[in-house]
Structure formats: structure tokens, C-alpha cells
């Protein structure tokens, strides 16, 4: 009997399969943050229940924390209360909390892998849709709502109908100027913004195998932008090398056992997927979104598309609305579109490799006059590492603001926002209307393109800079 990676991870977590009900899945790691947990803890307390497994629960603060002036009280009273509530809830229920100011604080999807808590074959959930990031390690990881957060706190399980399995095979080799971000934007363009609904995607093929763990995390992170429940990549030597020696990685004999187990977590030869798509990595180009959902992207060499070129009536109407919102005219070269702001960070592209790629571009250059440029490391450790490598010096010398870790302008909860009508080049994951602030216009790009765009003041590639 052949099995897919997804089946292998799913099967080993089924606690019970009551007739006529979804399966009960055990959850190996529950990540918690300040925004989607207060109502869950409240519900738990109202029902007189406890956190079943505080040892499998980790909390941090990321969504609405300030990224500047950490030595001062939090100015936003609502954010301050939410953060206080998380502290109180974690203290009362014995949940480990990496609070603001701790070296382990950061975006929840950056700190899990960094601590070695994200391991192959695990089930990982969080009240955040980008939990799919952790699938880069061959874990089954997905976002849940607050009622489900409460369910996991109380039972360490979730009721889940088994999704379908989709394979996205990326053959060949990415061109040197292309990154994991360009690849995943291309995949989402091919899939459509809802094309992955009901499915767990396994990313496979030569180009995926060649990605670093950071790149794999970028790809899996954006699975949800194609509507998929989760994304997964089978563990291999790259995964094992990344995990060795991390704080929560197994040691000694347990490491040997774990590695042997992880190596079995591959899709068997001949296993069939419910749906398969194939992407030619060699045809990927640096990608940039022009619209208001992540599937609406083109190559940097292209022009803003005509809505009439869209396939269906609905897609045409959506494109027309998007272009109106984005204040863009069809036929305009992408390179001629100028920006007001550049944001480098987020759970998609806020890891050390991303900051290195951006710093390489800005080294010895200046941010274009009138452009506001921010770098927000994904975690306090990423920030410290970047400072050790001197990356912060390149950014600040160029005119970037060098911030502390958090979600920041990815979703604009903490005051790092675009003003109405402003346009950004952003390394984040969503270009929805108003995502980075009411009336703001977001274009999703890779860290290298974001950095080059900050210098030029309009969309461009690093290779175009003089």
C-alpha cells in the first residue's frame, strides 16, 4: 500500500475516528499569540477547563507589538491590554511565553523553527493562517480559528475532516535572479487564489530540493494564499542539517532515532495525488503582484495586464476592481510604477537569509528620496544575528529604519501602516485592500526586489541598479 507524506503524518496522529464524525487528531505543538487567544482562554475558564498540555503549548507576542521604543510603555491601550491578557493567561495556565524583550520573542512562525520546535512528522497548529510555514520541515501545520484554539488548549486534539492531497512539482532550476518568493507567487498564479482549497499541497521536484530551509518556509508559508490548508516538503539532508543542535532538537540516541524516522517521511513511489500540477522552475521570473489578491501577479518585465485578458467574467470584474483600487492603468510597465514605502520582514520573508539578500542589494546605496523603508526582522534572534553580521549598518546607512521583531506592516496592527493612497513594495504575503493600512496599496515582491525598489524608487531588479 503506497502512502503520501501527508498520509503518513496524518495517520500517526489519529487518536480516534468516530463513525460519521471527523477524525480526532493529536496536536504535537500549539503556538499561541496575543490576538487570537484571549477569547479562547476566556472560554476555557468559563467552562472551568484547564490547558491540557502546557508543555506542548508555546506563546509569543508578535501581531500588535511595537517594533520601536520597546523601552517605553505600549502606547496603544488596546494592544497593551491584549498583551497583558496574554501574560496573565500564560502565567495562570503554566504556558511558556516568549514576551517582548526576550531574545526568543518573534513572529510565531519564525521562532518555532529557530528553536528546533518544528520537526518533521509533527502536527502543529496556531490561530494564524500562516502556520503552513512549518510544513517546510515535513510537518502537517495549519491555521485555526479561536474556537479551535480553545479546543486544542482543552484537549490537545482537533476534529478534522481529512483534506485532499495535491502535488506541486517544480522541475528544473530557478534562474539566479529568482527566489523562493518568486516561485511561490508563480505557483499561486497558476493555482488561483482559491485553487488549493480543501487540499494539503506537497511541494516536490528538483527546484524544491535545492531550496534552503528559509526558502522552503517562504514557499510553504504562502500555501494558504492559494487557498490550501497546508503545504509540506519531505524532510531531507537540508532539513536534518538545519535541525541539528537546535535548542529543542533531539540529542544523542534520540537524535539517531528521530533522523531514521524522519527519513521515512517521504511519499512512496507510485503514490497517487488527488491533483497534480507541474511548474518549470526555469520559466520563473521575478514576480510582483499588481492586484488585490496574491494570485494577481506578473513578471517584473511585464506590463499591468488588461482585465479583458482574464479568463472568466468574475476574474475580469475582480481585475477591474483591483486596478481601480490600486490606481493602475493596464499597459503600464511594472518598472514605471513608483512606491512610497518599502517593507522588508514578515513570516514570509523576515528570516536571516532574507535580510542578507536585501542587505547585499542596499550595501553602499541610498534609499530613494521620499521613500520610507523599513526592515523588521522576524525574531529578536534574527535581529541579533543580523547585527552580528553588520547587516543593520548597511540598512541604516542606506536610510532604512531598523526595527525590532514583529508582524509590523504585514498587517498594520501595531501602527506601522501605509497612509491612504500610499503604495508599497512589501516582502509580506497579502496584498488585500487595506491590508497594510486603510487605503494602502500593496505589491508583494521578494526581499531583493524590495531592496532594489527602495533604492530606485520604482519597481526594479537588483541587476538594474547602477
Amino acid at each position: 500500500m503506497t502512502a503520501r507524506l501527508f498520509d503518513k503524518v496524518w495517520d500517526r496522529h489519529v487518536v480516534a475516528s468516530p463513525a460519521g464524525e471527523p477524525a480526532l487528531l493529536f496536536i504535537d505543538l500549539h503556538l499561541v499569540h496575543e490576538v487570537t487567544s484571549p477569547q479562547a482562554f476566556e472560554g476555557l475558564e468559563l467552562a472551568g477547563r484547564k490547558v491540557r498540555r502546557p508543555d506542548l503549548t508555546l506563546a509569543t507576542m508578535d501581531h500588535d507589538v511595537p517594533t520601536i521604543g520597546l523601552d517605553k510603555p505600549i502606547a496603544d491601550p488596546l494592544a497593551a491590554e491584549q498583551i497583558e491578557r496574554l501574560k496573565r493567561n500564560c502565567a495562570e495556565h503554566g504556558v511558556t511565553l516568549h514576551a517582548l524583550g526576550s531574545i526568543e520573542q518573534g513572529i510565531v512562525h519564525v521562532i518555532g523553527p529557530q528553536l528546533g520546535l518544528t520537526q518533521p512528522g509533527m502536527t502543529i497548529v496556531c490561530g494564524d493562517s500562516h502556520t503552513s510555514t512549518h510544513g517546510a520541515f515535513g510537518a502537517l501545520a495549519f491555521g485555526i480559528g479561536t474556537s479551535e484554539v480553545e479546543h486544542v488548549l482543552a484537549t490537545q486534539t482537533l476534529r478534522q475532516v481529512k483534506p485532499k492531497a495535491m502535488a506541486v512539482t517544480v522541475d528544473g532550476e530557478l534562474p539566479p535572479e529568482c527566489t523562493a518568493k518568486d516561485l511561490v507567487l508563480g505557483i499561486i498564479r497558476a493555482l488561483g487564489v482559491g485553487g488549493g482549497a480543501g487540499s494539503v499541497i506537497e511541494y516536490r521536484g528538483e527546484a524544491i530540493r535545492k531550496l534552503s530551509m528559509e526558502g522552503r518556509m517562504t514557499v510553504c508559508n504562502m500555501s494558504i494564499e492559494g487557498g490550501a490548508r497546508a503545504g509540506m516538503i519531505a524532510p531531507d539532508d537540508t532539513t536534518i542539517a538545519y535541525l541539528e543542535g537546535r535548542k529543542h532538537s533531539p540529542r544523542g540516541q534520540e537524535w539517531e532515532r528521530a533522523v531514521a524516522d524522519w527519513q521515512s517521511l517521504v511519499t512512496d513511489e507510485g503514490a497517487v495525488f488527488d491533483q497534480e500540477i507541474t511548474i518549470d522552475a526555469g520559466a520563473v521570473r521575478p514576480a510582483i503582484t499588481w492586484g488585490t489578491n496574491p494570485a494577481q501577479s506578473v513578471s517584473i518585465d511585464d506590463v499591468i495586464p488588461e482585465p479583458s485578458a482574464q479568463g472568466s467574467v468574475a476574474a475580469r470584474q475582480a481585475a477591474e476592481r483591483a486596478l481601480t483600487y490600486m490606481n493602475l492603468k493596464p499597459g503600464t510597465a511594472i518598472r514605471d510604477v513608483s512606491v512610497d514605502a518599502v517593507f522588508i520582514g514578515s513570516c514570509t520573508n523576515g528570516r536571516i537569509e532574507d535580510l542578507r539578500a536585501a542587505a547585499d542589494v542596499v550595501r553602499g546605496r541610498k534609499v530613494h528620496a521620499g521613500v520610507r523603508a523599513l526592515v523588521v526582522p522576524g525574531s529578536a534572534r534574527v535581529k541579533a544575528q543580523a547585527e552580528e553580521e553588520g547587516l543593520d549598518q548597511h540598512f541604516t546607512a542606506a536610510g532604512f529604519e531598523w526595527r525590532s521583531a514583529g508582524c509590523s506592516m504585514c498587517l498594520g496592527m501595531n501602527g506601522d501602516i501605509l497612509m491612504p493612497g500610499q503604495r508599497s513594495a512589501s516582502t509580506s504575503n497579502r496584498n488585500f485592500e487595506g491590508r497594510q493600512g486603510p487605503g494602502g496599496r500593496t505589491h508583494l515582491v521578494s526581499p531583493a526586489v524590495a531592496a532594489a525598489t527602495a533604492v530606485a524608487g520604482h519597481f526594479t531588479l537588483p541587476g538594474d541598479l547602477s
Partner: protein
Amino acid sequence: MSGVKRIAGRGVAVQRSDVDTDQIIPAAWLKKVERTGFGAGLFEAWRADPQFALNQPGADQARVLLSGPNFGCGSSREHAVWALQDYGFQAVVAPSFADIFRGNAIGSGLVPAQVSEEAAARMFDALAADPDSEVVVDVAARTVSVGPGVTETFELADYAQWRLLEGLDDIGLTLQHEDAIAAYEGQRNRWLPALSG
């Protein structure tokens, strides 16, 4: 949570595809620590447009929202469901739903009624022709009707239907499997990570 069997009232049509949760409830609203009071933030940006569906007469009395495919895509925020409910909606009818939104809706007692594209088109037309039409969502029969002329069936998994009809507490149901959970916990691989608390 009480069960929901039949919903009857005004309908509102937001005829767009891929309505994302950032539109349903913008992130600035997520700083609240309660489950209530999100209705004022529902479709906050779109409501600035006087032509928007929620700004039409009677919209504040609506019980059923009709929308396009992939409704609720984007973030996992259950606040999107709470905002729809706080405004007064008890069901959303659409050709498809994003996975997390659908789960959140069922968990909170908002009916996600999935209809075919053709059925959705007939309902949009009927509601446009007579915005005062009564829209009825019958959870037991899995039908939705707009006025006397249009009745369509919708998809809803058996388990989800049962949950909605009975208003069941998922956690209570799961805790009936306490023995199985404890047995599972006893045989997990020893290398799996744990926090010291």
C-alpha cells in the same frame, strides 16, 4: 450555543469573488479581547461607499449574506465570523468558502451554505429583482430560497449539519474520548519536543 434550524429574513448580496477576511473585519479590530462588538467593523472600508450593499435600506435587518466564490479567504481570524453574526447575519450563501472560514463558521453557529455557481446566479438575480424578498435557509432540508420563486439546495457535510442543528459543544464531544487521548499520549515518540513551562 443554541442550535440553528431555520433562518428567515432579508438577504444582502455582496456579489464579489474572493471576499477576504481583511475586508470582513479589518485587522485594527482584532485588538479586542471579547467575542462581541465586531458588527460595526464589518466590511468597514467598503461601507464608506454609499452604494455598498450594507448601506441600502433594510440591510441592517438582513439575516442572510449572498456572496461569490472563495468567501472568507485569507486570515484565520474567527473575528470575521463574529462580525457577521454581530451585525445580524446567521448564514452566508456562496459557491465556495475558504477552509478556515468554513470551520470557524460551523464552530460559531454561522451557517456556511455552499451552492452551485448557477444557483448563486439565480439567487442574485431574484434578490436584485426584489430586494425585499424573504430569504429562508433551512438547515435540516439543506435548502435556501429567495422569495417564492427560487429554491436551491446547498451542500453542508452531515457532521457540520448535525453540529449546527444541535448547537453542540465540540470540546464536550471530544472529551468523551478522554481514554483514547490519554492512551495516545502514552505512546508518543520520546524525542518529540516539550516545553518546561
